[in-house]
């Protein structure tokens, strides 16, 4: 029985896992880098151990150090979260060797699904539609030209080990194939150490829609419905929702069945995600499988009503799934926004810094999965995502209204965040209508720029706020006041009405 879990991660996802542990009566062990001594996951955990310097390669990616702590603290299992070691088959294998349960699929599944050509083969064998193309390795530019002609333009040339938008080229004309093929190969070699590339038909007006699945160690697999993840910036998801406004019940049912078939084909154990591309004609194709918890898992939790992390732990502990496919119902609508410390007006430059003021939204239908607090310094070493804001409501329209309200309440000062940008996203008519594909951010660039401020009372109020602060400090710092106790200084201090809010 699992009684103690080490969480090999940081940030909001580490807290997310620890929350589930606490509810299940399981002790949690945090690991942290030297930059993370004051991070929430260290404060939250029952036990905590430093595993090295700030760079991930010397801490959160160090298999040896993490296993050392796991053994020292006598943990029964390790939860990898997402990112870092979560899709590292070697790490899963090493856990197995040490007799520690790795909360995720077995290493062979991770290897099978990590290699895109392999994964394609598995899916074809399982009868899951894949994007037309070849699953064979290409051996020459000439072969590439032949394949492209056969499946028809436009095509994508992709690195087998690629990901996150790297090592891929879109080709529209036969005369561009050779150059793209060569560029892709060399990028793949330098980026991933493997120059295997393959070719797929380019999907038009594509939606990125994924299905959450759960498989236990007894061969049962269910899917928990879909998530629409087409609001992407440089292949990174920004806003996700469930259910997808694009799917109809029939297509949802077909895709769900395909997702279950896909998971069964690889004997999948744990929580996983089958990502599909859906074109504008509602054809769907297997894209890839993520063999871990996703950042956007909460939107599924909100509409389906299950706790996915608890399910992961129960599955890892050998329990049979208690939920049957026919019991899974999507109720209402959920939307997630990723809150990032980045300057959307300066090419999304990351913006680490100290949070001087933090107001998080609350009230009906609001969920915050976050790892920051007022006074926290966001380190520069890790991902700029500082938290996730999830809303639920009975209908999509109400969920959007709730998200507007929540973004209005959300106040982070001291550093730059994307909160206003998110607000503009959900105000775009195409988003409100639920009629968008992965081109959304590019197509709506202009609408996503900050609107020019117009002269109104707000502007004058901003002037007043700054001016009064300036005067308060000026009065205070005036040399005359140093030996004076009352007068000017105290007059200014009287601005603070109450002890708690008294400035200065």
């Amino acid at each position, binding site marked *: 029985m699992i009684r103690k879990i080490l969480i090999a991660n940081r940030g909001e996802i580490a807290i997310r896992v620890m929350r589930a542990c606490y509810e299940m009566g399981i002790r949690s062990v945090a690991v942290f880098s030297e930059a993370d001594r004051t991070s929430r996951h260290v404060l939250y955990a029952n036990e905590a151990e430093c595993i090295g310097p*700030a760079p991930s390669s010397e801490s959160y990616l160090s298999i040896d150090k993490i296993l050392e702590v796991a053994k020292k603290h006598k943990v029964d299992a390790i939860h990898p979260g997402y990112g870092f070691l979560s899709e590292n088959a070697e790490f899963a294998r090493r856990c197995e060797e040490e007799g520690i349960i790795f909360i995720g699929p077995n290493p062979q599944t991770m290897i099978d699904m990590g290699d895109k050509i392999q994964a394609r083969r598995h899916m074809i064998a399982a009868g899951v539609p894949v994007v037309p193309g070849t699953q064979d390795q290409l051996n020459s530019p000439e072969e590439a030209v032949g394949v492209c002609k056969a499946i028809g333009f436009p095509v994508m040339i992709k690195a087998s080990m690629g990901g996150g938008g790297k090592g891929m080229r879109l080709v529209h004309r036969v005369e561009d194939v050779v150059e793209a093929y060569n560029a892709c190969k060399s990028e793949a070699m330098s980026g991933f150490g493997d120059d295997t590339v393959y070719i797929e038909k380019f999907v038009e007006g594509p939606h990125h829609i994924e299905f959450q699945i759960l498989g236990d160690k007894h061969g049962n697999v269910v899917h928990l419905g879909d998530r629409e993840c087409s609001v992407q910036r440089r292949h990174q998801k920004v806003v996700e929702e469930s259910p997808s406004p694009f799917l109809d019940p029939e297509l949802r049912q077909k895709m769900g069945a395909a997702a279950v078939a896909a998971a069964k084909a690889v004997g999948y154990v744990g929580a996983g995600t089958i990502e599909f591309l859906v074109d504008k004609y509602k054809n769907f194709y297997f894209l890839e499988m993520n063999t871990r918890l996703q950042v956007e898992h909460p939107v599924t939790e909100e509409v389906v009503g299950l706790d996915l992390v608890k399910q992961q732990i129960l599955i890892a502990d050998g329990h049979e799934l208690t939920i049957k496919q026919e019991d899974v119902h999507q109720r209402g609508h959920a939307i997630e926004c990723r809150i990032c*410390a*980045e300057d959307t007006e300066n090419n*999304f*430059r*990351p*913006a*680490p*810094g100290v949070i*001087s*003021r933090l107001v998080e939204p609350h009230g009906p239908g609001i969920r915050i999965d976050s790892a920051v607090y*007022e006074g926290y310094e966001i380190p*520069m*070493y*890790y*991902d*700029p995502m500082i938290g996730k804001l999830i809303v639920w409501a009975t209908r999509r329209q109400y969920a959007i209204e709730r998200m507007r309200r929540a973004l209005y309440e959300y*106040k982070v*000062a*001291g550093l730059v965040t994307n909160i*206003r940008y998110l*607000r503009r996203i959900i105000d775009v008519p195409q988003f409100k209508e639920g009629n968008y594909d992965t081109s959304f951010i590019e197509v709506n660039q202009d609408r996503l720029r*900050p609107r020019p*401020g117009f*002269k109104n*009372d*707000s*502007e*004058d*109020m*901003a*002037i*007043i*706020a*700054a*001016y*009064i*602060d*300036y*005067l*308060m*400090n000026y009065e205070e710092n005036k040399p005359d006041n140093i030996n004076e106790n009352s007068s000017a200084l105290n*007059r200014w201090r*009287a*601005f*603070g*009405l109450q002890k708690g*809010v*008294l*400035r200065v």
Partner: protein
Amino acid sequence: MEIQIGNRLAEVTLLSKEGNNVSIEIDGKIYHVDICMFANGQVSILNNGLSYDATLIKGDTGKHYRVALNYSNYEIDMLDSQAKYMRMRKKNDSEKQADKIKAPMPCKIVKVYVEPGQQLQPGDIVLTIEAMKMQSNISVSEACTVAEVRCAENDSVMAEQVLVSLNLNA
């Protein structure tokens, strides 16, 4: 006092103050507001029955503010006589390459491409920095010579820290 907000230059005068109630004239318009300042930079203003919840971030000099209010960020500068003088001087320099390259944010030095004494042409890349898994390059905008390199690869540096100093070809 003159206050710069975005591109606008506003003339601001404090008329009176009684407790939290302040009268202020901005470009000829008089406001009577009730204002509360909070320790964490929050400012609550009631103006004519409307409620404004603003957040102040003060710059290092105490004369620059970023104010977040509703859905806008305002950049505000207090133009006292000293600030005006500095501004005038700076204006003349604004197109020119500064003689120090500073870190734009807390970051790690990934690569240093230059060494002391090296001649640089406009557009030459001096450094690659990394923060939050994103890399970017810093280059010079005019010809100059590297005077001193004050950072090394893999260093972690603070925002505004001087990384390289330059001799400008005056």
